[in-house]
């Protein structure tokens, strides 16, 4: 069993590295200059960041809105159950709200900055072609 786990662990480590090396070799063969490769890597980096930060902003905003409603309009508990302490529920909702706001506020400037970078790179490419 331990050998199987070790084998699977090594497989999970080696396979992604091998894929990356193959991709790098394919890209290097295809592109004639170092500049082409640099541009591709830069684009991959910028657009990955843009996609991920956009997803975080959207899901964070929706979650913050939903939890904010729970904070402003808490449901009253009628069961008297031990695990439904309303003050504690309110505090948990406040913490979740603050965490979601922090996620959105952190990712927004990153998104704006990388968007500007992408736009600048596009403008430079357009000028080069012209």
């Amino acid at each position, binding site marked *: 069993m331990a050998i199987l786990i070790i084998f699977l662990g090594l497989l999970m480590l080696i396979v992604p590295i091998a894929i990356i090396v193959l991709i790098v070799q394919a890209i290097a063969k295809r592109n004639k200059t170092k500049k082409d490769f640099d541009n591709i*890597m830069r684009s991959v980096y910028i657009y990955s960041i843009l996609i991920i930060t956009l997803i975080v902003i959207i899901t964070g905003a929706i979650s913050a809105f939903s939890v904010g409603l729970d904070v402003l309009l808490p449901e009253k508990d009628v069961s008297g159950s031990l695990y439904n302490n309303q003050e504690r529920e309110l505090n948990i909702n406040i*913490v979740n709200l603050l965490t979601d706001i*922090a*996620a959105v506020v*952190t990712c927004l400037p990153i998104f704006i900055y990388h968007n500007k970078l992408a736009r600048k790179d596009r403008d430079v490419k357009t000028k080069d072609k012209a």
Partner: protein
Amino acid sequence: MSNNVRIIYLYIVAFITLAMIVAGIISAVNNIAYYFFPDSYLFYEYDYNEYNEYSSYNEPFDYQDEERNEIERENYKTEKIKNTVVSLVVVVIGAIMYKYHWNMIEKEKSSDSEK
């Protein structure tokens, strides 16, 4: 080939350190919020008779031992402070590494455009 690997390394490290910064900030805010708005049962009052009816690993404290409960409350707050400090350290280290690697990327780009 080695230069291509170098470029990949620079972008991967920039990506990872940026993720470290974001995760560190969110974690710090989360821990600070839990410090001021605790979620532990130690901070809320429960009916002792009702406590006896429940038995799970999430059951509340035995609130008859007030001295122990006070120590547990302090431990909870101390843990949140420590987690906040660790998160801020992650942010600072991530920011330094990101700045350094991003500067190297920009230097590579500007040297390419000069050629």
